[in-house]
């Protein structure tokens, strides 16, 4: 079977007269919308806002670490800076990044529905996100929090007089936003699929989000109750986590990581979901081993709940229990490996082009492999003793989160930009920015692995001079990285006005969302589609006739 897809040239395409963007105007029509696509855009804007704040904080971290002593800011300020960096980046940027924006936009389109199951709850979830964001920002503005993003007790409950409760409440509220998003996705995927859309015809993007949603609804509430207990401990001293009262500070760790480990899969699974789509589209080939990739998402979600204690190996947990969790951690790494290999194999016999999303996807594969395999270092008990709480961890999670998820996010934003806005981003400059990001990333975070093995502890405002050289590299890299991220922030808005008109299906992709006009109508589909082919069926696409560029509305 071989396929050449040649759709009519999209260059002649015009913007549709009517779309979700111009159906209604005015701020109110946005702030009160129930349309998942508009809510996605709202999320996109707010997430970018928080990313810039988190990024500026990252810049401050790197500037401070340029020299060994704490000279740019006091240690106290530094602690607040990295805590806010972690909190904002994780809870306000990375957790909602792909699901709340791209996922929100695409899940209904991909399953062939008119909207998510509960549009009002979807809007509510955005408002909760914003309220959570305001809490966290106010905690920052009022004087900051210096707990780190992990809120370790009893430090956070009894030994700090910063705005811990405000920040915790912010995370609590933002957590419910994430729960509601997950709830909406699960119900939509179960109940709103169009005729003929069986589970195994779903795009892998949907599978990835399904798995993510499972974690969101089962994990997040545990974090919520934990933060409530922390707040109670701080305000009225209830003693559950306080060793002087007979409580157990490790219990906090258990409950916190019960959410926060699965949360790292909330952060990566949607990214993997994007990569599946991108790789398939630009190699014009069905994803190799569709079923394995689909099930590996669910496997990651389920196994992800079994391994949280690997964050506590030297924290005084029982050694026998540590054994169990180390073993389970090894198991959870396997489905990720399956995915990586299946994607690589998808390229085989493909017909590959190298547009920007594909470049980001390659970045993802390389960097996530390194990041993931260094996760194995940490899961290995004896090795973790030396590596834990050093820059090795910092490097590990930036590789998976920034090198993995952020790259996937950018891949997704570029890939679906034409669908969301109806216009193409400028290809040449965006390729450049992908390459700059990649180089900047390596220079920033690779030295941190070496630093970590040398023993440099994380969360240090001042460090012994022996570590300076590698830190200078890291800071230099961060500047390059910053430029890499700044570029899309400039050219993407630019393209809203000056970009080429995209047409329905600029990538000649198979997904349902590509078969309708871009940007789509408010109701997505005039007629609910009937799915009569497998996902990624390029045969089907190739056989589709010429009446493609028609724009409805």
């Amino acid at each position, binding site marked *: 079977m071989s396929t050449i897809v040649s759709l009519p040239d999209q260059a002649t395409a015009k913007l549709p007269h009517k779309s979700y963007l111009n159906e209604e105007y005015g701020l109110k029509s946005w702030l009160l919308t129930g349309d998942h696509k508009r809510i996605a855009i709202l999320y996109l804007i707010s997430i970018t806002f928080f990313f810039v704040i988190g990024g500026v904080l990252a810049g401050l971290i790197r500037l401070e670490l340029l020299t060994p002593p704490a000279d740019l800011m006091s240690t106290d300020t530094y602690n607040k800076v990295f805590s806010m960096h972690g909190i904002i980046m994780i809870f306000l940027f990375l957790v909602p990044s792909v699901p709340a924006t791209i996922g929100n936009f695409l899940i209904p389109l991909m399953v062939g529905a008119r909207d998510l199951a509960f549009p009002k709850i979807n809007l509510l979830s955005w408002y909760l996100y914003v309220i959570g964001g305001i809490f966290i920002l106010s905690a920052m503005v009022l004087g900051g929090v210096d707990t780190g993003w992990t809120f370790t007790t009893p430090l956070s409950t009894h030994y700090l007089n910063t705005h811990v409760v405000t920040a915790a409440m912010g995370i609590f509220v933002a957590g419910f936003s994430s729960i509601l998003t997950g709830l909406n996705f699960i119900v939509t995927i179960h109940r709103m699929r169009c005729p003929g859309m069986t589970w195994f015809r779903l795009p892998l993007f949907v599978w990835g989000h399904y798995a993510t949603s499972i974690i969101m609804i089962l994990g997040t509430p545990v974090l919520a109750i934990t933060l409530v207990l922390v707040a109670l401990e701080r305000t009225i001293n209830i003693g559950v986590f306080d060793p002087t009262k007979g409580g157990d500070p490790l*219990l906090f760790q258990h409950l916190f990581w019960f959410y926060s480990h699965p949360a790292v899969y909330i952060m990566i699974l949607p990214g993997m979901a994007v990569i599946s789509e991108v790789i398939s589209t630009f190699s014009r080939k069905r994803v190799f081993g569709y079923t394995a990739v689909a099930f590996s998402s669910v496997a990651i979600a389920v196994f992800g*709940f*079994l391994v949280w*204690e690997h964050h506590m190996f030297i924290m005084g947990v*029982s050694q*026998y*229990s540590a054994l169990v969790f180390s073993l389970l951690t090894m198991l959870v790494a396997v489905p990720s490996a399956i995915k990586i290999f299946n994607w690589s194999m998808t390229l085989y016999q493909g017909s590959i082009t190298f547009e920007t999303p594909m470049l980001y996807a390659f970045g993802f594969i390389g960097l996530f492999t390194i990041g993931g395999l260094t996760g194995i270092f940490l899961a290995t008990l004896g090795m973790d003793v030396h590596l834990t709480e050093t820059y090795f961890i910092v490097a590990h999670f930036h590789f998976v989160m920034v090198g993995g998820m952020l790259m996937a996010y950018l891949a997704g934003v570029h890939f679906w930009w034409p669908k969301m806005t109806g216009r193409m981003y400028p290809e040449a400059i965006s390729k450049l920015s992908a390459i700059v990001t990649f180089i900047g990333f390596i220079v920033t975070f690779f030295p941190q692995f070496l630093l970590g093995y040398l023993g440099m502890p994380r969360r240090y405002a001042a460090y012994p001079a022996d570590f300076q050289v590698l830190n200078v590299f890291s800071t230099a890299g961060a500047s390059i990285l910053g430029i890499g991220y700044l570029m899309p922030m400039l050219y993407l808005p630019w393209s809203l006005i000056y970009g080429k008109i995209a047409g329905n299906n600029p990538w000649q992709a198979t997904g349902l969302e590509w078969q309708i006009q871009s940007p789509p109508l408010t109701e997505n589909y005039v007629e609910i589609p009937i799915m009569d082919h497998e996902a990624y069926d390029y045969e089907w696409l190739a056989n589709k006739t010429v009446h493609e560029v028609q724009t409805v509305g």
Partner: protein
Amino acid sequence: MSEKNDPEHQEQHIVGPKVYLLVFLALMVLTATTTGVAFIDLGVFNPIIALAIACVKASLVVLFFMHIHYSSRLLKMTVLAGLFTFLLLITLTMTDYISRAWGMW
């Protein structure tokens, strides 16, 4: 009940007052039992029996008041998923607490 997987049968199963009343009575009796048993010294079995009765009561509520008995497989799976994750939280945390003092006795 048997037609719960029948796609044609979209009508909700209506549970009648009789079932509700029976379940209610069972719940009341079980409440009385659990309170009564608590006053008898059964050693380690006290908490076990208390929890067992609570589980029976909860199952009754879930199955009949909440209609899971008449619902689709999907809803049944949903309930089980909740139970399963909760048990994961408990058991895996306990691996730590139970074995922490191993070697001490």
